[in-house]
Every structure is written in C-alpha cells, then in structure tokens.
C-alpha cells in the first residue's frame, strides 16, 4: 500500500470518497509521522486523541454521504488560532496553559468541512519573526537540508522561516496534508518559500480574524499552507467567507477557487516590478525569477515591466504600523484573567503588570511593544504613525495603478533561501529584511501567494510570489498553477 502521507489533499479527498482507506487510517499514518519527526519541533501541542475521535466521526460521515469538503483530511493549526479546550499559546510563555473556551471562525470552518486537527503548530512568538526563532517553545527545524552543510549536525539545521514556521515545516515534512498560517508581513509566504510549499495570503478581509490572537489587526490575515496549488485553493475555500463577528471581514460570496485552476494564463499581462531587483539581489533568486517570467511567457502571458515606486518605503512603514497596533493589541496580556501571572508578591498593580509582562514576553515582542508605544506617543504620533499611514496609502496606490496595466505581478518571495538555525540571528534589521518582498502586498491588503519554483545551487527551495488585485485570488491561483506545472518542483523526499 502507498504511504498514506504521500497524498495531496485533492488525492486523499478522492480516495477517501472511494473508500480506498479510512480517515482514521489516514490520521494514524500522520500521527505516526509526527511522532517520528518530533525533532523538527513543528508542534507545540499535539492532539492525537481529539484527532482520532474526529477521524472516526469523519468516517461515519463518509459512509453516510454527508462528507464535507475536507472530510477526514489531517491538518495542523497554527497556534495563533484559538481552539476550544485545546491549549493556544501564540508561541508565548505568557499564554502557556491557556485553553480558550471558544473556537476561532477559521478553525471552526475547517472543522465544519470535516478537517481533522492533529495539533497546534509552532510559530514565532505572537507571529513576530521570520525564522521561528522567537518561539518560547523552541525553534523549528526546516526539514530541508543544504548540500553544503553536514546534514546530521547543528550546522546542518536550517530555519523554516516564520512566523508560520511550524506550519511550513509540518506540511513540507508530510506530517499534515495542509496547515493554517497567518500572514501579517509575509508570515505565510516566506516560510512557504523556505520549506518548498505553497502558501497563500488571501485579500485582507477574506478570512475572519475572529478568534485569531491579534498581532497587527489591519494586516493580519489567515491563509492555507499546502503542498500544491490545488490543495491551497480547496483549503482556502473552506477557510474564508464573511463573518459578522469580524467588522473587517468582507461581505462577499466565496468563489470556487478550485474551479479557476486549469484556465491557464493565455492573454494575461504579468507585471515585473523593477524595484524588486535591487543591486546585489541573490543570483539564484534572480535566475529563478527570470525562469518564472519565461514559464508564464511560454504559457501565453505577456510580461510587462512595471514600477512600484514606493517599494523602498514599505519595510519602514510596516515597522511603524505593525508594532503600533501590536503594542495596543498585546496590552490585554496582563496576567489578570488568563495565561501566566508573575506570582511573586508585588506592591502594586503596576508592579504586577511589569513583572508578569517582563517574564511572559520574549525579547522580540518587547522590542516591538516598545517601538509601537514610541511611535504612538504624544509628540511622535504625527511624525511616525500618521506619516506611515500616508505612505501606506501611496504603496496601495502603486498597486492600484499597476493593476490598471497588468493582471498579476510576479516577484521573488524572499531575498534568500533558508538560513542556518544556529547562526547569528541577533540583528533585527537583517531579520526584518526577509520580508522586503512580502510586506508591500500586506500593506496594500492585496492577495499574494508563494509557489515553490526551484532549488538554489545549495539544493534549497526558493519560491516565487504572485500578487493580484483585491478579491482576485482566482487569477492568482491560475498563475500559480502554471508556475507549479512548469517548475516541476521536487517534492521533499521523506525518509520512510
């Protein structure tokens, strides 16, 4: 019998429907793989019992013909999504032990579609990071190894990217068929690129943010992380839709993203932004980008050079807006009602806050709270926050202007491939540069996807990013699938 962890969501769905195997068998195979891959540290919490119970329920529905779109499909949930009765930490000590009495809208929708949650995936603390190195629960290892590095040594360990590093690693290592991620400035797309999988950040407002621990509310957006473009389309459809509990969720009908696949790119105009090719762009990344342009051309699309003039301001803008919102969003972690509290006797309420937050938050979270508090302070607000909002509007206008000329934009997802896990990671600016290609789309609220497009000369995955205008995920999926077909990306060989 074929290894049950080798299937895509689409393939597993069809075979479950044909009774070739049961949901329970599928779940057990993945639980076994998770056990073997513990060393990756992809999960913060595993929920084997919950998973087996739900898999059995899925089998019952499969038998009675009441199966949902993801019936019996084993998935992982990023630990930023609140899951009823299951510990939800956001990768932070301050939420350790917190079991929400409610289920996030997105994870509830996946449950309703029949997906089986195997556990909660590791991530950068409060989604702040690009290497998964800020997690209180330890770093995640990228299942990919570089040719130039000794595979079974510390030097061989690579980061999976972040913040959805656990999600990317688990999908790449075949521990789950798909996983949820969240993307604030690139947290789905960059780890997808690092781990050689597909990651989709839909339009801001497509997925409900209700029940997702907030990082930066005007940027946070959930999305699927899968091994194929089709799987991402299937999973996104189950995740999104209007939610009256989230005022920023769009009251729009959900398109059938899977139906958009296979339409090709013939006649589409593909924008190639010149600002994304700075001096000193990594040669492998540049080569692959050129290859991507050629693939789309071969499929009948027309590449068009475009300009997104405010690109260089995107990163500084992001690092004002996101920390500002975070500094306020994270105020609720005060040790009073849930999560960890410093129990050493303080003399005042303020002291209790200070001790609890000092002990509960990691260094990167503290850094961003400080930055955010600073940029919102009296006397600085206009110079930083207000100005950043104006620049953000200009960046969004860049894209609006571009999409009057082109149907989609193609760029690299990240400036490099995965880097060493144990190397120097103490320069925050260098870390922030990981998101230089993903942040502009986040600020503009437009959809973006990363498709694995090839390997660099060290054998590590590189992704290409496809951007389209707001609410046009269908064109994005079409372009992604053409790239996927052309790239013939080598699936990671997982040791049996």
């Amino acid at each position, binding site marked *: 019998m074929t290894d049950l962890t080798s299937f895509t969501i689409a393939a597993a769905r069809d075979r479950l429907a044909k009774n070739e195997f049961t949901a329970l068998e599928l779940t057990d195979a993945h639980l076994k793989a998770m056990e073997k891959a513990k060393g990756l540290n992809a999960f913060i919490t595993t929920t084997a019992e919950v998973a087996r119970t739900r898999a059995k329920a899925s089998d019952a529905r499969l038998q009675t013909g009441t199966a949902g779109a993801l019936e019996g499909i084993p998935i992982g949930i990023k630990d930023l*999504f*609140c899951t009823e009765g299951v510990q*939800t930490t*956001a990768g932070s000590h301050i*939420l350790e032990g*917190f079991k*929400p*009495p*409610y289920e*996030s809208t997105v994870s509830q929708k996946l449950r309703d579609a029949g997906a089986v949650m195997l556990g909660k995936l590791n991530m950068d603390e409060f989604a702040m990071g690009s290497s998964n190195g800020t997690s209180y629960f330890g770093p995640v290892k990228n299942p990919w190894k570089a040719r130039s590095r000794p595979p079974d040594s510390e030097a061989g360990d690579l980061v999976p990217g972040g913040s959805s590093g656990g999600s990317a690693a688990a999908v790449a290592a075949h521990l789950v068929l798909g996983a949820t991620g969240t993307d604030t400035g690139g947290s789905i797309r960059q780890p997808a690129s690092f781990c050689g999988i597909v990651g989709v950040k839909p339009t801001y407002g497509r997925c409900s*943010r*209700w*029940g*997702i*621990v*907030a990082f*930066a*509310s*005007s940027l946070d957006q959930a999305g699927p992380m899968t091994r194929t473009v089709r799987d991402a389309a299937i999973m996104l459809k189950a995740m999104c839709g209007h939610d*009256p*509990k*989230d*005022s*920023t969720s769009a009251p729009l009908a959900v398109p059938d993203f899977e139906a958009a696949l296979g339409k090709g790119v013939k006649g589409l105009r593909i924008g190639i932004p010149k600002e994304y090719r700075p001096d000193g762009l990594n040669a492998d990344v540049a080569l692959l980008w050129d290859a991507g342009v050629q693939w789309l051309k071969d499929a009948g699309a027309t590449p068009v050079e475009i300009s997104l003039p405010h690109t260089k301001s995107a990163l500084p803008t992001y690092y004002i807006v996101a920390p*500002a*919102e975070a*500094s*306020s969003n*994270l*105020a*609720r972690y*005060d040790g*009073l*009602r*849930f999560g960890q509290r410093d129990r050493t006797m303080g003399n005042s*309420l*303020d002291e209790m*806050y200070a001790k609890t937050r000092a002990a509960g938050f990691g260094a990167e979270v503290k850094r961003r709270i400080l930055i955010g*508090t600073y940029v*919102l*302070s*009296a006397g600085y*607000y206009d110079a930083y*926050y207000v100005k950043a909002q104006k620049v953000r509007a200009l960046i969004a206008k860049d894209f609006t202007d571009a999409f009057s000329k082109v149907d989609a934009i193609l760029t690299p997802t990240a400036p490099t491939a995965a880097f060493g896990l144990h190397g120097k990671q103490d320069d925050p600016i260098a870390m922030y540069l990981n998101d230089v290609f993903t942040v502009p789309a986040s600020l503009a609220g437009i959809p973006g996807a990363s498709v694995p497009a090839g390997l660099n000369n060290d054998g590590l995955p590189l992704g290409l990013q496809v951007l389209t205008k707001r609410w046009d995920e269908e064109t994005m999926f079409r372009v992604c699938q053409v790239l996927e077909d052309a790239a013939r990306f080598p699936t990671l060989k997982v040791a049996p």
Partner: protein
Amino acid sequence: MSYVIKGDTADWEVVIGLEVHAQVIAKAKLFSGASADFGAGPNTQVSFIDAGMPGMLPVINGYCVEQAVRTGLGLKAKINQRSVFARKNYFYADMPQGYQISQCDMPIVGEGTVYLDMPDGMTRAIGIERLHLEQDAGKSIHDMHVTKSMIDLNRSGVALMEIVSKPDLRSPEEAGLYLKKLRSILRYLRTCDGNMEEGSMRCDANVSVRPVGSNELRTRCEIKNLNSVRFVAQAIEHEAKRHVDVYESGGKIEQETRLYDANKGETRPMRSKEFAHDYRYFPDPDLLPLEFDDAFVAKIKATLPELPDDKKARFIANYGLSAYDAGVLVADQDSAVYFEAVAKGRDAKVANNWVSSNVFAVLNARNVPITECPVSAQHLGRLLDLISDNTLSTRMAKDVFELMIETGKDPGSIVEERGLKQITDTGAIEAAVDAIIAQNADKVAQYRAGKVQIMGWFVGQVMKATQGNASPALCSDLLTKKLAP
C-alpha cells in the same frame, strides 16, 4: 445672576465646562451582545469581548449609534455621517483590553446648543462642543478583601455618550441648571435614564477663574466623577475659591485632575501632570469608520418627541402660562403629559396651579415620580370639573384632594359617599343667613356702622352652620344684600 468671587486684588469670575458621561439606554453593550442592565450579580453580564479574551473582536451595536444620533439631534447638534473609533490606551485592572474604545478626532456628533431656563424666566444658550460614543470600564472594589481587589466586569463595554460642553458656564448654579436641562433632554429622548445615583450619568467639571472683564482662559483643573447635581455645584464653588486664593497669594495653578471630597468640602489632586497618562490614541483597526447616510438620520429625526424647549414654547402660547411655570412643567416629560391631561378642555391656569403646587407637593413629600402619583390626571381633572360646576368650593376641593391622595378614589365617589356637595340652594343658605343675622344684632350694627371688614366673620358663621358646604360666593352675595343698611 452674575457670580463674582470678591478677592483682595480683583473680582473674579469662574469659567466652567462640563463633561457628562451618559450611559446609553440599550439592551446590549456598545461592541458585544452582553446585557447592559444595571444591578445583576458580579461578572454575570460579561462576554468574551468584554473580558478582553485573545482574538475577540468588537462589533458595533447599531442601536447605540441611533441613540447617539438621536441625542445629537436633541442637542440641535451637527451629526457627523462619518466618525472614527479610536483606542485610548492605558492599563487598569477593570479595563481588560488595555484600551478603551472611544472616539477622538472624529466624534459622531459635533457642535450643538443647550438652552438653560433661568429662574428669571430668561434663557441662556450653552454651547456643546461634541458628543462621542465610548465603552465604559468595569468596576474595581478595593474594600472587600484585605489584600485583594475585586473586579466586576458587568459594566465593561457598556455604551456611554460623553457630552462635552464649551466653557460657557459662569456659576455653580448655571452648572447645576445645565446638568438638569441636559438630563431632561436625555430623558425625553429616552437615550439615558439620567440616574446620577446609579452612575448612569456622571460628570467631570473643568474649572478655571479669571478677573471679571477678562477674556483669557486660565489653567483649568478637572474635577472627576461628580455624582450629583449638588456635588457638582459644591465642587465648583470650592475649586473656584481655591484658584482665587492661589492667584491672590501670588501662586500658580497647575493643570491637574482632582477629586471632590464632599465630607471635607474640598478638592484634592488625583494625579498631577507629570503622572498624566499618554493615552496614545489611534484609530481602532478592528473597526471600520462609522458611516451612515441622510436617510438614517432622517428616520431617527422623524421619531423625535417634542423636546422641552418646544413644549415650553407651546405651553406659553397655548395655555397662557408664564415662562417660569411652563419651564417647571416641561422639565419632566411625565409632568408635562400629566398637566396636559388635566388642562385639556379646562382652565389651564387653574390646572397649572393644582399640578405645580398641590400635586408636586404630594410627590415631594412621598418622593415618587408623577407616574406613581396617587391622584391620576383624570381624577384631578374631574375634581376641577366639580369646582367649575359649583359642586365643590375650592376649599372643599382641597379636602377632597386629601381624601383622593389617601384613597386613590375618584372625586365623584368621595363627594357622593361623604355628602360633600356644596349647598347652592339659595333657600337653605338664606335660612342660615337670616338666623345668623337674627342672633348677632351687635355685629350687624357694627357692620352697618361701617366696619365692613367683619363680613368675613359672617361668612365663616354661615359656613359653620352649613358644615362648610355652602357656596362661599352665594353666602357673600346674600349677606351683602341682607346686611345692607
């Protein structure tokens, strides 16, 4: 009524602006579906949103928006069809989110006017700066446990309207009148119940002083959480005197937040400027800007009741009441309704006299609202009818009114049961008059000699003889006729 504080160096006037927090009458909270009722057990009306749980998001309660617009219309204010909710960031144990959702730069309601009904019958316009919607915090209770503070989040998230006046008030009395008028308008609109004791209406006063004749605005102090009209007036009086004393002794007033201690009759600093919070306001990214169209406002406008100022004008015009009397009647909507029910088809001035003196006296004595008055408007109306058809004399009517208060009965039944009918039968009264004249030859002689003022004595004797049931008017008529020399 100019209010001047006499100092050694100058005469000072006081400049006052009030910020009123009015709890919106609504079933649910501003951003959650939890009940907004007062008086439930601690922490029984708290949603996950109100408790600031991770991942929870606010959703605006449309009814609270209607209520704010309704109030804005009642204050004759500019309605802003686009407003923005902002976060006011600070840490406190009874504020679970770590910020209060409020409105900063773009409030839902802009400038308006409240007209004060001055005791001399004049009106005075007080500017409204703005009205904005915001969430209330929870309640901290520090005296239930030796080392712990208790938190009740029932109030957390309840909708408040913060109504800010311009610094147009010039005396503690005006501040009191402003609060009463504002409360009257809110109650007419049914947008806030105005109960200061229950905390559903709270007031902060901004106070400064300046030499009479000056137009400068000097440093102000904000006195927080004043929970009665009386305390507002007292606190302003004390604070203004303190400012004058400081200036006159060559000192400087620091801008600060102060609390009023009603027992000691003084204000004292709560926190000074150096510990002032930096609230780091910024637009709440969880909420879209609040937008509505003309039709939304027009629909609310169509449901507005007749407001106190219009009602007062109508009472003056239609019932011939004085501005003062009309002002007293319309201050409370139920009183105005009561009055109109009594006055309908009757002499309005008589009706006003009965309502404003007799009925209000009963309400004050019993401390009940007019809706719980033991004498209904219908019954009082019938009592006035019994006077006008001469069944009862005014004096008898007062006795009947006392019985109506005690029994709640219809005046007609009381008159029947007690046989209290005024004697209007000339024959019966004439007999009594004749008897009195016959028995009191000396008094008759005195009267006829010119001591006409003893007429009252004669009337009293006739009334006594008829057990008070004689029509006083008939008595005097007959006596005058028969005593004529």
